[in-house]
């Protein structure tokens, strides 16, 4: 039972990331009708916002320590952090330690800007082109973004730790009567889950309860009619692209301490996220979120040692098997609407 609880938590965690990426993908597809294969790359860019923020906050200058030598036998140059120069040792260290949460503040404008540039600079030229063209161009864009990141940051994953205060573990075993250390779960992963749930709730609230959101939803249902009412729906949709990019970016920032950011991250998540969108139902925001969590939990259980040893490789195909089964039973996905992708 203890392992089942842990795997459910793992699944919720993984599902949070799936759901956030799929939510953005669905927003873009639902508003602009664009199949954005660069969305995984936006998730990666978010993770690298965390890396860059961390590097900026830990900028340093060198001071020669004559008492020690470097690997060539020269006097050792040691790093002195600007943050500690400016704010004192303890406060400076705390600022550097909280780089990942602070990176959220950096990532929001950066990701919105990237989203705007992507949409206005490239993707808008492909609105009326077939989905195959959109896939090709956005896939190419994803490769370019990955290569740019690799050029500047190298190929190895970059450790980006969570703040010390949030790096511990929560002992669920004590709470649930299993005794100490029976069900231990990393605190940051719980933070990730609750944060993701908040972001998802905020996006839904924005679309549900604001006038802007209402118009966007109307535009998603019938773009032409909304346009005839004199509303510049294109501008709002461009904003939604920026919002979707920001959601993917924030998901990436918060994920950086869980899996060290690497330039391959976007591609790692892309295909699975699309499967999530399709299983949830193309264009359905609640479907994307539901499918994200369902598939995350299924994948997590399929990765348990007992299951993998019994059925080697099952964890790598289970999502696709489940997706095929769901699509056979419900061709439009769990919560898909009639007409989407059927014209």
């Amino acid at each position, binding site marked *: 039972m203890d392992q089942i609880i842990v795997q459910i938590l793992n699944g919720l*965690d993984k599902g949070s990331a799936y759901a956030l990426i799929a939510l953005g993908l669905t927003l873009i597809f639902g508003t602009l009708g664009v199949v954005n294969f660069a969305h995984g790359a936006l998730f990666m860019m978010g993770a690298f916002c965390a890396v860059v923020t961390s590097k900026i906050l830990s900028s340093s200058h060198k001071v020669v320590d004559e008492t020690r030598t470097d*690997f060539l036998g020269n006097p050792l140059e040691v790093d002195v952090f600007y943050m500690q120069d400016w704010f004192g040792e303890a406060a400076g260290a705390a600022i550097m330690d909280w780089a990942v949460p602070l990176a959220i503040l950096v990532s929001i404008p950066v990701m919105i800007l990237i989203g705007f540039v992507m949409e206005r600079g490239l993707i808008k030229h492909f609105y009326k082109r077939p989905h195959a063209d959109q896939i090709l161009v956005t896939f190419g864009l994803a490769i370019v973004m990955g290569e740019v990141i690799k050029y500047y940051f190298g*190929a*190895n994953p970059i450790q980006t*730790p969570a703040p010390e205060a949030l790096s511990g573990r929560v002992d669920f075993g004590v709470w649930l009567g299993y005794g100490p250390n029976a069900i231990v779960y*990393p605190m940051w*992963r719980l933070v990730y889950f609750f944060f993701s749930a908040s972001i998802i709730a905020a996006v839904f609230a924005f679309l549900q309860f604001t006038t802007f959101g209402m118009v966007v939803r109307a535009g998603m249902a019938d773009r032409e009619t909304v346009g005839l009412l004199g509303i510049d729906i294109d501008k709002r949709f461009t904003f939604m692209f920026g919002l979707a990019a920001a959601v993917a970016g924030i998901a990436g920032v918060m994920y950086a301490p*869980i899996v060290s950011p690497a330039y391959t*991250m976007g591609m790692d998540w892309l295909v699975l996220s699309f499967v999530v969108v399709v299983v949830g139902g193309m264009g359905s925001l609640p479907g994307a979120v539901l499918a994200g969590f369902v598939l995350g939990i299924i994948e997590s259980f399929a990765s*348990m040692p007992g299951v993998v040893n019994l059925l080697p490789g099952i964890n790598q195909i289970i999502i696709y098997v489940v997706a095929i089964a769901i699509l056979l039973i419900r061709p439009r996905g769990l919560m898909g609407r009639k007409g989407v992708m059927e014209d």
Partner: protein
Amino acid sequence: MSKSNFTRRGVLKTGAVAGAGLTLPTYLRADGHAGFTNAPGDSEVVLGFNVPQTGPYADEGADELRAYELAVEHLNGGGDGGMLNTFSSKVLDGTGILGREVKYVTGDTQTKSDAARASARSMIEKDGAIMITGGSSSGVAVAVQALCQEAGVIFMAGLTHSNDTTGKDKKANGFRHFFNSYMTGAALAPVLAAQYGTDRKAYHLTADYNWGYTTEEAIRASTEAMGWETVNSVKTPLTQTDFSSYVAPVLNSGADVLVLNHYGGNMINSLTSAVQFGLREAQANGQNFEIVVPLYSRLMARGAGENVKGIFGSTNWHWSLQDEGSQAFVRSFGTKYGFPPSQAAHTTYVQTLLYADAVTRAGSFAPCAVAEALEDYEFDGLGNGKTLYRGDDHQCFKDVLVVKGKENPESEFDLLEVVEVTPVDQVMYDPAHPQMGGAEATLGECNNGA
């Protein structure tokens, strides 16, 4: 009226013969070569450096390439000469190889066997490379080694740690300076026993490909021989990034040691997951829970950051070694590039020097003559003490380093400390050892190619 000699049948015949000739691989033609593939002219010789320039091991590949360029510089008489000054053999004099200036071409393996074979083939056929070297994955090394055997050129393996490279899949034209999984097990196990005791229960997470299998097999055999028990072993996909589902069950599995048979990004992420789940602070079976990473590299340790502190593993070479050869190499490399070389850089630099030395001693570039010069060759001054290139399997035997993640690093390069230099005798094995493919595995015949 002119008379034509062409007939329909004649044209067809000529066309068929010409077509077949053109489609034959270049290395099968003996045009202008002195009985072997890509025999060099009088002025220069071309070496092929086939490294991952893209893909997950691109950082290792970049360091390999730096070392190759440094080796070429030294062979051609540039720089400070590096390990040419400390090498026990004195036949290399900075005038290239056998009086030919050394040139090189590079290829990108992408850490994919197909891509690696394609780039090696191109370097042999189009660029006239007489020797191929490089790699950063055992799968790639085995694939390229087989191609070099077929083409009749020498393959001087770079970073490849699987037993199979000089075991099950060994080839007469292939040579490996890097150590292997068996040696890691033999060197590491006694240190683990001394540190953690002989009453331990291990849980293995193993990368699901050739290198992972041989490493798990070697570590299991060595630790079980000391009294450890293996509780479970789980294969993890090479593409896995989040290892939480694999790590979470470990704590309650009855194990008190987690062995991560992972390399590169896999190791960085699996170790991160293990630390996040509190394995380093946990207790099991009344003992502190321990993590072991059999194969370390400094580049990998840098990626894993704080998490590597106190964790044991093995490495082929480390820049902090104090022998003359290692220090000469660190000085050359550090002065040129501004940071110390990795073990990948060391092994590729040494392989290049060893090839040049063997050619010079043999007085010929012919692969079989070079192979003969390398077989059972003993040398010193290139790091790790006295070294033997064993003729039976073309595997180098030298001291193996057991390292530990440093608790208080003084710089970003100071991540690992050498805790034991395991003498070569302790890591030697019978060439027909079962882990190496048994008696059936043979080198085959040396191939001079064209």
